[in-house]
């Protein structure tokens, strides 16, 4: 059998499997996972638009007034300068460490672009927190965090788990794998065909999720700011995010395809891979390179912020390895994938079906 026949066989297997990967009932939750961040970002965009519209109608203050607000001002002074606030809420508070009841007040002001949250304590301005209603820079940071902490570590991870584990282990549980094994095709060809179908399905689903998420991020922000961003870094950043998504599917896909062949219970590899990927930040730099996440983070254009509330000790122990260049990351991940697929091909060559034990 020559190479072209084998390539054709890979294509046929991939095409047959692709329909199953895209349309089966089991893929439904993968779509949910991939689209969930986009739904949240769209929700945020709608929230920003609605608020901007409503608060603008309710009355805005001059930007200079917001800049002049200082701690220690009285409530009456603030109201005199700013006029009727958008929100004015008063309540009484008594904490365990405080002897007397304190009269608290929250006032919200809006200048058409920025919101200012004022907290009064016994009618004296205690804190002023002014921030833009939507900030592209801030949203980009949030997107970077969501992409690295949720999209890559959770969505792509579990999505690939569902898709790639289904390719062999699913067929064993459905008692249909023997049909494939009876086909006049080499086992390695079968493996590659199935891998290709899983890769195409997962990549398309998660790329769609990333693009929608990015679109929602831009929609929420000021058009002028967005235009400026589009003319400079947007294309490059989106490309890097999409590359990281596809590479995530390549890497995790190979790992879970091999896991589906090697072990009967996927919980063990899930826990091991999940544990390994979550502790890599604490490991020596050499060991960090033995994880899929290291290469994916190297491809990401914006480094994710450390989560708020992370204890100081944990921050100290976190020592992320210096990111490798994009080419090294791509080649490293492809190398890792080739190695895992080679190991899987050795296993698949000797695979024997005994449905009774599954």
């Amino acid at each position: 059998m020559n190479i072209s026949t084998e390539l054709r066989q890979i294509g046929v297997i991939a095409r047959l499997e692709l329909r199953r990967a895209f349309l089966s009932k089991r893929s439904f939750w993968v779509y949910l996972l991939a689209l969930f961040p986009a739904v949240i970002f769209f929700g945020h965009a709608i929230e920003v638009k609605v608020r901007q519209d409503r608060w603008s109608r309710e009355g805005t203050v001059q930007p200079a007034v917001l800049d002049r607000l200082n701690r220690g001002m009285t409530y009456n002074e603030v109201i005199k300068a700013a006029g009727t606030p958008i929100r004015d809420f008063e309540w009484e508070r008594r904490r365990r460490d405080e002897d007397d009841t304190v009269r608290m007040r929250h006032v919200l002001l809006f200048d058409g672009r920025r919101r200012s949250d004022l907290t009064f304590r016994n009618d004296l301005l205690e804190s002023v927190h002014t921030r833009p209603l939507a900030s592209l820079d801030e949203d980009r940071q949030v997107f970077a965090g969501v992409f690295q902490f949720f999209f890559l570590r959770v969505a792509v991870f579990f999505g690939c788990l569902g898709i790639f584990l289904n390719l062999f282990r699913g067929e064993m549980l459905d008692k249909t794998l023997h049909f494939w094994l009876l086909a006049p095709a080499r086992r390695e060809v079968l493996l590659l065909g199935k891998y290709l179908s899983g890769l195409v399905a997962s990549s398309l689903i998660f790329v769609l999720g990333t693009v929608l998420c990015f679109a929602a991020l831009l929609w929420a922000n000021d058009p002028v700011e967005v235009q400026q961003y589009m003319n400079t870094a947007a294309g490059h950043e989106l490309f890097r995010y999409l590359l990281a998504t596809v590479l995530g599917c390549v890497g995790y896909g190979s790992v879970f395809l091999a896991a589906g062949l090697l072990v009967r219970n996927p919980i063990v590899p899930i826990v091991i891979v999940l544990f390994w990927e979550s502790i890599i930040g604490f490991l020596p730099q050499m060991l960090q390179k033995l994880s899929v996440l290291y290469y994916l983070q190297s491809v990401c254009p914006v480094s994710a912020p450390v989560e708020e509330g992370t204890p100081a000790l944990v921050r100290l122990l976190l020592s992320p390895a210096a990111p490798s260049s994009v080419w090294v990351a791509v080649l490293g991940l492809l190398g890792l994938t080739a190695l895992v697929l080679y190991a899987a091909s050795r296993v698949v060559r000797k695979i024997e079906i005994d449905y009774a034990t599954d």
Partner: protein
Amino acid sequence: MAVYKRGYQRYQGPRTSHLSRIMVMPRFSWQRLMGMKITIVVLAVSMVWPLMCAAFIYVANHAELWQGMGGDMVRFLNINGRFFEVFMNTQAVFAMILAAVAGPGLIAPDLANNALPLYFSRPLTRGDYIISRLLVLLGMLSLVTMIPALLLFVMQVGLAGWGWLADHWIYAWGVFGGFALWIAIVSLVAMACSAYVKWRVIAGALVLAFFTILAGAASIMNAVFRVDWGRAVNPALAMNQIWRSMLDMEPLEGPGAWACSMVLVLMGLTLLAALTRKLRPVEVVK
């Protein structure tokens, strides 16, 4: 063909007690689970942290071992709510893994093999069936949660004296009640996954995915909307807030213990409804 004579009639003889009927399934399930290598491995690994905590309690109660080490050490070696909170957070993870290992095998095989009519043709109600399955998980999970926690508490009382007990009895209630709630949630998740996915192995993965994905979803909501109510959606964080309240600690930022309790109750009821919907003693022949 007309049926002239009924082949079956209701059993009229003496019955065993209700409790013993419920306990039949846990008895056999515990035996089977204890025969699984993976359960033993998870149980063994999950005992490491309680042993380390026991060593910590021993050192904390022997001042001569750390004399002259300064005020920071004195503050660190203090058996308080924070100590039990850290212990509970760690063991909760093991409870989750154990539920992912042990839980899916409870209901999925009964559904896949149409065994429910066999159970329900005996004097067992749907509620009894759910309780008996819950008892299996309660027994297994309490081995890594409640029992070690209470043993640690007893050890601390033994070393520190009755005076410590009088001042800190609330910790016993905190670890017992807190873990009971966590076990209830984890068990319901495991059973619902087991009922909805006929493959045992996939159901196990789904249990882990449930907690990981909800944690991620909560973080996304908090980050994107710049709020902190998303914490209530994360079962682990919501439970942590409840534990802090039960251990008489200052609450963390975000929704309070009552709000978190409400969310978890709602989550539990939804899981229970999903479970009872799936557990129907009928066999559909297509």
